[in-house]
């Protein structure tokens, strides 16, 4: 009973219901939308954003943000292909992608955690710095299908039990991250930091170290996800990953990972990413001009914030009433 109550209160539920609603509407209007290939389209399309949204959740729950992920994933997807085409193996490419991701995360994390600079500005700067270095590195070149390691190409093309491998990678990440965020002490500290930074210091939480680590985790996952992106598109160029960070943050917000920190789950972010993707596809299926897609997604973000605000004030009201009649 209690468990059921908690389930209904969970912030992920409205996201899930919205997703069901969107799919139902699209399915009625255009039955091909509900076909296996239609579903696969969504799952394939959502994988990258879902992975980055899960990683970004580590940062957003601390009341921080990382805008550099679009530049970073583009860079590492290019890097993996480039190293492979120069005769290095896949593993060298992956190690390099991880290293670059961790390094960018560590620089962001150091500036935010130890020098106490605002993460919005630091990572906005990192967005341009990484993109600039990437542009110079990739100047005029493109990674073509022939330069993509076959294993990477394989994950982009194949399915296991009918589900695209790319999506399964995202699913595995959200399952593991879900357990970590819910049940590992250090990860719980991230929620405490986002909920009340001053109190977190007073409670003896090593705030700076946690903030630093979370940025490194986000950077590392993002760096590795370059392989996923390369597999998905089977190509890369200097514009890869452009503006992706905004969709990632939108997915988090829509999924209930509040920008104000302290609440939300990786599952919420994951569902948020799927919901945005489903809406994009639905707009296509309904024959609505694609221009409307961005307007819809924007409205959804505002709706999500309004919902969070409403829910938190309602929770407040019920707790106050509850404590009175004891």
């Amino acid at each position, binding site marked *: 009973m209690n468990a059921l109550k908690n389930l209904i209160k969970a912030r992920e539920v409205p996201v899930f219901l919205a997703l069901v609603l969107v799919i139902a509407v699209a399915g009625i209007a255009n039955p091909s939308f509900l076909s296996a290939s239609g579903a696969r389209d969504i799952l394939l399309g959502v994988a990258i954003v879902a992975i980055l949204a899960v990683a970004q959740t580590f940062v957003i729950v601390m009341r921080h943000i990382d805008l550099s992920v679009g530049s970073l994933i583009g860079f590492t997807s290019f890097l993996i292909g480039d190293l492979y085409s120069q005769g290095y193996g896949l593993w060298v490419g992956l190690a390099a992608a991880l290293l670059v991701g961790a390094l960018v995360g560590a620089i962001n994390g150091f500036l935010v955690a130890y020098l106490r600079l605002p993460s919005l500005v630091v990572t906005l700067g990192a967005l341009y710095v990484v993109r600039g270095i990437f542009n110079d590195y990739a100047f005029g070149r493109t990674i073509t299908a022939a330069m993509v390691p076959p294993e990477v190409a394989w994950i982009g093309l194949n399915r296991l039990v009918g589900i695209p491998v790319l999506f399964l990678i995202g699913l595995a990440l959200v399952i593991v991250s879900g357990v970590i965020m819910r049940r590992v002490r250090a990860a719980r500290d991230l*929620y*405490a930091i986002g909920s*009340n930074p001053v109190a977190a210091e007073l409670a003896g939480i090593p705030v700076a170290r946690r903030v630093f680590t979370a940025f490194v985790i986000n950077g590392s996952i993002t760096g590795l996800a370059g392989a996923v992106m390369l597999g998905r598109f089977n190509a890369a160029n200097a514009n890869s990953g452009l503006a992706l960070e905004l969709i990632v943050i939108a997915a988090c917000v829509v999924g209930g990972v509040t920008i104000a920190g302290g609440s939300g789950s990786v599952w919420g972010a994951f569902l948020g990413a799927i919901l945005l993707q489903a809406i994009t596809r639905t707009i296509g299926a309904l024959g609505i001009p694609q221009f409307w897609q961005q307007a819809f997604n924007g409205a959804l973000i505002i709706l999500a914030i309004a919902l969070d605000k409403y829910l938190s004030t309602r929770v407040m009201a019920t707790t106050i009433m509850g404590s009175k009649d004891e």
Partner: protein
Amino acid sequence: MVRSKTSARVAVLEMAHVAKAFGGVQALVDAGLVLYPGEVHALLGENGAGKSTLLKTLAGVHRSDAGEITLHGRAFEQGSTRDSIEQGIAVIYQEPSLFPDLSLAENVFVGRQLVSGGLVDWAAMEKASRALFERLGVNLDPHAKARGISIADQQIVEIAKALSTDARIIVMDEPTAALSSQEVERLFSVVRNLRDQGGAVVFVSHRLDEVFALCDRMTVMRDGSTVGTSLIRDTTDSEVVRMMVGREVSELFPKLEPRIGDVVLKVENLGLAGQFSNISFEVRSGEIFALAGLVGSGRSEVIRAIFGIDRYDTGSVTIHGSRLAPGRPAVSMEQGIALVPEDRRQQGLFMASSIARNVAVTMLKKLTSWLLLRRTREESTAATWAETLQVKFANLADPVDKLSGGNQQKVVLAKWLATEPRVLIVDEPTRGIDVGTKAEVHKLLSQKAQQGMAVIMVSSELPEVMGMADRVFVMREGQHRGTLERSEATPEKIITLATGGAVAS
């Protein structure tokens, strides 16, 4: 009683000759505190006496510059808040420090979540915190989020947190400030329970009646030093007050002979639900009228309502016989009221703007022609006022951020004096500024009053109230508790009215 034989027992904590400076301000000079197991120990002193700094040293928030601290007979390791927690010290701060988005159970165990097999064990945490809440006699749901629970419940959660760490020393910084009388009773029984189980509780409160009802011993601090420790039952409240006040009212207050004129501002029966009620007074031209009381007694709220920042539920404010529209600061300014707020950085100044802009901002209409602000006029006006108030600055175009606290306060005063108000309201006019500038501010207020301005001064510093005020209006818990004429005001009388202690002899 067994408890009184504390001298025979081993102290859990001994702090001696602790000193701490912040920049140029010596917050602690020679502070000490000795704590025995099984006692509730009151830490007393006026605002700014150094109580909070001393406790934050113990909590690991600050590191002392000098002094010895021994804990359980061993040297206390000053490191981080975590080190203090691990050494058995729990601090319940004045300002709530719960995590609104986390469950009460997680709040109890935050940073030390119970784990089994390396993973957080939610069921065990909920069970353990339920048991703690039961032990404390409250019916709180460990699963509920902390957002929105009452301050009394927040404190219970903080106490549960302290219990869960097996803290032997529990510090409570003004825990009763926001509680109703039933909630205070509940808290007291919890504290007595902790004491009877051998815990040492430090209790900071400004309410002497509570100190006498709850505590066993007390330590009094003044100006960053400990001035005495005694058993509560051997002490009377007038002795406590004398120890807290201590000094003579200094000659720093160049009070001029007042020339009291007609009533300028009349406040009748002013009330705001939950903040203050039945506040009535008249202020005459040439008079310095002090609102005294403890922090949180409703003084600032009253002046905010008068000036129109907040609305009020009942009553009226009249200036020169005409009723002042409530909730309209702009109208209040037009009618000749000025308010120098309590927090100059947040409320009084535009920190990043120039000195000139800050001074001139109240007179933009006068300085504007053809919709454009005349910079030369702005600068000359600002220069005049800066000179009148002897603001020390390098360049009028410098941001006020660069100035010292005292000079910033002068800029705020200049900005409001430039409006040539009939009623000047100042909230804590000399908080955090050096002694020299303090005297200058006092002289200025005194001069302005003598020139016919009516001055309403909110102050928590007794010497300031004693030295400046023609009349003292004392508030406690949102109520008027008494008005004292200059001739009859003594620190003892003011403290007694403000704290609700018995009338001192």
